[in-house]
């Protein structure tokens, strides 16, 4: 038996030697970034980091490549799973022979248990709140993991996908490398991190022992080019094969006119919302909030951004998320807005100081909103600050109106909990991103989370959205889709309709013709 194993290992080693990554094509990707941040997948929160992490790691389950639809979730590192009758105990059976990058050996249940515990701990993960319902994770044997829940959750498979905290890391590498793991992570994905050169690129090399099959692309050069114009020029000059795009119709049209170029527009859309602090003047008056909602012209915002890349927000949860309903947002009506302002004692107009980021994409959108509100008598006095300062100050509750744009796992519970639940109010110990201080729908959100009846759950999520929209806790603006341009020579190996890693998944089937 031992002889057979040695022979097999020797054969695998020979195949690895014969397979030469340098002989395979190099995929050159242009990204709007100065540098990558934290490549420990449990800390990868920015688009820049999420895209590259998606190429290096797997989850127990995964979205089918090119999809962000939870209905397509399929086995990844786990080949099958089963759950107890009450839905609180889940057992995952792992694939055998899955190898980590480098010399970190075979994936075992110990790595999975370590990863999920790490993802659920605030000190070692930015996504720990998603794992609150998990009571315990244990390795039953080297290829079996048991997860016991404290309470029922809308989608356990959802948090175990190849997304955010669901990525599985090498226990040995994480323990050995400590803080260094964030810049030298080890996963099981089709590509391994080779090196990061600050302000230049992150270089990835194909993982020859990838459990599905060896990737057809040898290397990925993930190049940091923050200026849109410079990146576009590099793409036009064929120095890039894949280019991070601007969610703007003019950009899309220009790229589409280039020969041999395909523009991919895909889910998940980021929903932009004006979050109104209902505990502070002037937005503690419902009439002022309604006036602001009537002043917003979503159709104009879509026209400005482009009909191919954006759509009107119709609820305080993005369209397409499980549980989304059209919640009856107030229509554009500047006359009604002025009347409501006058009723609330602001007949001569209202000025609101707002902290906002200088990030061009967000600042530009806010300037269109500023103009729309000005027509209705609401002046936004924008205090423009650097992006990191913006995030810090809005979490200190320093702005009565917060423009925030985000995509989350496509189940209503996540968005409702993080943005609209009382437990998530900013400047509290359990704060997430509830800038409005709304807690009127807490009962419905909590009940829906633990409900085992899908119909009941959907009804409760719908009810929560109606309450929040009626209370005007926030005003939805537009949903903006992700945009990338690629040379036709790049074939993803699947149709790209969505990607939770916010960039096109580069898999073992992706090839450069």
């Amino acid at each position, binding site marked *: 038996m031992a002889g057979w194993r040695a022979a097999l290992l020797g054969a695998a080693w020979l195949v690895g030697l014969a397979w030469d990554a340098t002989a395979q094509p190099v995929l050159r990707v242009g990204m709007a970034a100065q540098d990558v941040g934290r490549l420990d997948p449990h800390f990868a929160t920015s688009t820049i980091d999420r895209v590259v992490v998606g190429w290096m790691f797997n989850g127990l389950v995964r979205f089918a490549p090119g999809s962000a639809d939870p209905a397509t979730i399929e086995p990844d590192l786990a080949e099958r799973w089963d759950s107890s009758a009450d839905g609180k105990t889940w057992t995952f059976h792992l694939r055998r022979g899955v190898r980590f990058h480098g010399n970190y050996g075979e994936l075992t249940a110990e790595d999975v248990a370590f990863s999920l515990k790490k993802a659920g701990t605030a000190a070692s993960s930015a996504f720990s709140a998603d794992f609150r319902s998990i009571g315990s994770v244990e390795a039953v044997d080297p290829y079996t993991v048991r997860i016991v829940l404290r309470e029922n959750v809308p989608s356990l498979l959802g948090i175990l996908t190849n997304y955010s905290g669901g990525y599985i890391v090498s226990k040995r590498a994480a323990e050995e490398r400590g803080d260094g793991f964030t810049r030298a992570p080890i996963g099981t994905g089709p590509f391994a991190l080779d090196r990061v050169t600050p302000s230049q690129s992150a270089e990835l090399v194909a993982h020859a022992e990838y459990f599905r099959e060896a990737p057809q692309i040898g290397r990925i050069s993930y190049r940091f080019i923050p200026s849109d114009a410079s990146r576009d020029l590099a793409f036009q000059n064929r120095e890039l094969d894949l280019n991070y795009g601007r969610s703007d119709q003019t950009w899309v049209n220009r790229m589409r006119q280039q020969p041999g170029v395909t523009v991919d527009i895909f889910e998940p859309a980021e929903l932009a919302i004006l979050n109104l602090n209902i505990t502070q003047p002037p937005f503690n008056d419902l009439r002022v909030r309604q006036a602001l909602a009537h002043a917003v012209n979503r159709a104009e915002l879509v026209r400005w951004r482009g009909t191919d890349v954006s759509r009107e927000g119709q609820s305080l949860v993005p369209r397409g998320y499980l549980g989304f309903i059209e919640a009856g947002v107030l229509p554009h009506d500047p006359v009604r807005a002025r009347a409501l302002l006058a009723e609330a004692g602001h007949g001569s107009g209202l000025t609101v100081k707002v902290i906002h980021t200088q990030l061009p994409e967000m600042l530009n959108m806010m300037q269109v909103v500023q*103009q729309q509100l000005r027509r209705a008598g609401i002046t936004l006095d924008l205090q423009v600050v650097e992006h990191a300062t913006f995030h810090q100050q809005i979490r200190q509750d320093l702005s009565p109106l917060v423009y925030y744009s985000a995509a989350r796992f496509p189940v209503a519970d996540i968005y409702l909990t993080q943005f609209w639940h009382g437990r998530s109010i900013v400047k509290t110990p359990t704060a997430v991103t509830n800038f409005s201080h709304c807690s009127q729908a807490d009962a419905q959100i909590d009940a829906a989370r633990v409900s085992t009846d899908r119909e009941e759950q959907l009804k409760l999520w719908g009810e929560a959205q109606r309450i929040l929209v009626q209370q005007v806790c926030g005003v939805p603006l537009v949903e903006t889709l992700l945009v990338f341009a690629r040379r036709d020579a790049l074939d993803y190996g699947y149709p790209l309709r969505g990607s939770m890693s916010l960039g096109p998944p580069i898999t073992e089937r992706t090839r450069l013709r």
Partner: protein
Amino acid sequence: MRADGAASLTWIGGLLCLAVLLAALLAPWIAPFDPAEQSILDRLQPPGGDHWLGTDQFGRDILSRLLWGARISLTVSLGAIGLAMVVGGTIGLVSGYIGGRLDLFTMQVMDVLLSFPSLILGLIVVALLGPDLVNLVIAIALTAIAPFARIARAPTLSLKERAFVEAGRALGYSHARILFGHILPNILPEVLVMATLWLATAVRVEASLAFVGLGPKPPTPTWGGMTRDGFETILDAPWLAVFPGLAILLLVLGLNMVGDGLRDATDPKLRHE
């Protein structure tokens, strides 16, 4: 022949500056559109038709924004250089006149200020105080105080030994009267020439600060801010960056031409030539 050429350049520079000054003063009457009014349907229109210089990504008229932006550029630059001239000039005068340890200390402080490039010092101050018009004026003034102090101090050192100053002292005039009534009028031409040359620097620094996002709040039009906004869409609509860039270029060129001409006119060596 050379003098004629220099004079022509000074006149051309003067005309450029005058044109910008008139544009700034008359902006409310000659700008064809409200510089902040958006028209999403008209976004990114090329030059021509109703919009002579085209429109930006919000459908705002670029010509109108340029005219109103001239006001910001000139207000900030003139305000900053005026402030630097008064503060720096006074420091130089007093320091040179009193001399001794005070002079030594003051000039060392000025040397420290001079060691910072104008843009870096401006960036630090605006980042600390916040980007509004008054803070911009203060930030740019701070970058220009040291050169004015130096230019005022040098002639003061020699003038204070001259007979007319001695006579003033003998007659019992106060120090303030001697400084501002007798020495200042003699150094004023040099300070004014310096001011003209530094105005160009002030315009450039203001535009650079606005370019990196430290200008007045949106939707206030500034030339630097317009150039920055246009830069990201330069492949789709190059006119967004080209026209404000050109405006900065012409104003800085004009101010430098006037400054050079005035310097030549007040330089006794060049005057003989």
